[in-house]
């Protein structure tokens, strides 16, 4: 049935108590992407999410539309559609849905809300989603939790509308069928034990059927410690990939603390656990500061072992000290090993009148990223005036070296000045200066540029009532790794004007 007809039926037949909500995300660009084959281009990415709800029932769909002026690329697709029934702890959903089994070692279907990416290979803009298309039934009670699901997972790095071949044909983003289940019980209120199972039916004729399973347990021992004013819990999950390629995953985490001191520790060991529809915990600290976020280690599920320990201490009327140690090792062959190490110290000054500040220092290495040494420091100040206006200053510096290239040592300097009005509008000027030879050399020229490079930008934002949010970017920004909600992806460099509009009705 045509979507427009379906909408019409919904509108006409909707009872008085029913409602339709629409959320839109539009991003328009006029500019150029360094290293691309075309000069200045104009693009528009539009996403509409239409939801119809009545009491416990919801149905809806998402359209993604991408237009390029100056190049032969456009996409018009309904990328998600669903119908859902929810009542108390019960959930039944058909169509596109998100789900997690255990802590994601065997399955996690999710999206990165608000992220719009441009695929370097296909040069199409899209919202990355690793969702499932099929059906799920779940029950969550105080004693028993159960989930059963079936569906085809989307390959998150292939954008909707991607084509290949001659003549060009759409690339299938969903091929394999999977079915899975989770059952967990709570024999006591502070103990949860359970297991997950996922069966994979690959579509390729050469591929073997295979399945993965996991067992997990979680113990909250706060009741035993509460007399001493402490809390604590542990979680562990062991997963195996059977038949086809053998693999395993082991995750162990725990936390303990009191009113001021907190400690969390995690251990991981993953081997051949990349299914493209799972997402085990990475044990890498999520950084919000620009220079650290762009040099985040990306988990390698083919083989990675490591740990992360983080301690926090909060001094009343002053702020919070944080210390984090992360370590990972990848065994990529009999004689090939790579290492990731990171030490992070930060202090958040939180309780001075009208002033907050963050000081951080971070050092480490990431062989997979080609960095054998990296030291980063920064300060971020924010002050609020009597009229509620916020002024911010963000200064960061990074010195790093690579085992190859000339020069092999480089530095990055980042500065931002921002102003935000309490009524929801503001502005920021960002300066990003680097001597990284990979950034200084412009791929669109045949020459090898040396020296330094500076990226300037002006960012304006405005919230109009409760229905619109707008962000305007003017200037140049560099590409590289960025991370949101624990998931990292590559963003392309851009120079020009970009306007983003979020709408909600």
């Amino acid at each position: 049935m045509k979507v427009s007809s379906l909408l019409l039926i919904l509108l006409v037949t909707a009872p008085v108590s029913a409602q339709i909500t629409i959320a839109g995300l539009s991003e328009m660009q006029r500019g150029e992407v360094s290293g691309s084959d075309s000069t200045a281009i104009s693009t528009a990415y539009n996403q509409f999410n239409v939801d119809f709800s009545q009491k416990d029932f919801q149905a809806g769909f998402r359209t993604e539309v991408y237009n390029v002026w100056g190049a032969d690329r456009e996409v018009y697709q309904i990328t998600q559609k669903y119908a859902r029934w929810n009542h108390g702890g019960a959930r039944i959903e058909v169509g596109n849905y998100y789900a997690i089994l255990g802590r994601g070692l065997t399955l996690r279907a999710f999206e990165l809300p608000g992220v719009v990416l441009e695929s370097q290979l296909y040069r199409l803009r899209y919202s990355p989603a690793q969702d499932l298309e099929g059906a799920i039934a779940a029950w969550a009670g105080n004693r028993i939790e159960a989930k059963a699901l079936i569906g085809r997972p989307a390959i998150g790095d292939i954008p909707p509308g991607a084509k290949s071949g001659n003549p060009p044909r759409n690339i299938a983003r969903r091929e394999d069928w999977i079915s899975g289940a989770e059952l967990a019980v709570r024999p006591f209120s502070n103990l949860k034990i359970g297991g997950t199972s996922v069966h994979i039916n690959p579509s390729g004729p050469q591929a073997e059927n295979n399945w993965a399973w996991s067992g997990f347990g979680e113990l909250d021992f706060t009741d035993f410690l509460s007399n001493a004013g402490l809390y604590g819990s542990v979680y562990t999950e062991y997963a195996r990939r059977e038949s086809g390629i053998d693999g395993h995953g082991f995750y162990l985490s725990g936390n303990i603390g009191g009113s001021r001191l907190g400690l969390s520790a995690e251990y991981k060991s993953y081997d051949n656990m990349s299914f493209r529809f799972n997402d085990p915990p990475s044990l890498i600290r999520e950084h919000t500061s620009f220079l650290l976020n762009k040099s985040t280690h990306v988990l390698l599920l083919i083989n990675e072992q490591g740990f992360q320990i983080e301690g926090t201490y909060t001094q009343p009327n002053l702020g919070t000290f944080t210390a984090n140690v992360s370590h990972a090792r990848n065994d990529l062959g009999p004689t090939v090993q790579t290492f990731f190490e990171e030490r992070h110290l930060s202090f958040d000054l939180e309780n001075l009148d009208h002033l907050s500040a963050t000081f951080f220092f971070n050092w480490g290495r990431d062989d997979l990223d080609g960095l054998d040494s990296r030291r980063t420091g920064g300060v971020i100040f924010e002050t609020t005036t009597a009229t509620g206006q916020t002024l911010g200053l963000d200064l960061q510096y990074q010195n790093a070296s690579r085992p190859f290239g000339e020069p092999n040592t480089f530095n990055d300097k980042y500065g931002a000045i921002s102003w935000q009005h309490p009524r929801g509008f503001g502005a920021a000027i960002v300066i990003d200066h680097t001597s990284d030879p990979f950034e200084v050399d412009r791929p669109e020229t045949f020459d090898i540029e040396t020296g330094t490079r500076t990226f300037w930008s002006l960012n304006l934002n405005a919230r109009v009532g409760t229905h619109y949010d707008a962000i305007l970017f003017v200037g140049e920004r560099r590409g590289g790794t960025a991370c949101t909600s624990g998931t990292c992806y590559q963003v392309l460099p851009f120079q020009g004007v970009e306007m983003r509009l979020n709408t909600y009705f």
Partner: protein
Amino acid sequence: MKKHLFTTLSILFLSAGATDAIHAPDFNLPAPNGKRINLSALLKKGPVLLDFWATWCKPCIKGMPKLEDIHAKYSDRGLTVLGINEDGPRGQNRIRPFLRGRKITFAIAIDADGSVMKRLQVRALPTTILIAPDGEIVLRQAGLADAKDLIAAIDALLPKKEASNESE
């Protein structure tokens, strides 16, 4: 087909602004201690203020003391403040140390697969949503909440303090 679809969408987009009330869909999520939190059960006690947040989200952290103040001031008048954590599996182990250290005492629920975020059409962190006892969404703010608007909306939903004292 494309023309029809986008004409329909445009009409919907423009006409939707005229709709009166949007009701929040129900959800059922676990708290860090494993207990289940159900929106419809909370609404029976009074209005609910949802705050979508994550441990790595700087504006979320900045806004939390204000939400804690609101919780301290309005919880005895029936308001429930509920923080919905969006860390995913990566940051789940750090939630408790984070909350205890910052003296956050309002209720927290864990949306591990982001399905509640999707159901409520939340696209940015933090997002604050105020829901009236009948389920109607009366205020929605993406980004750091405007405290004046938020408090005015909460006050409008709750019985006046003097009136409640008199009735007692």
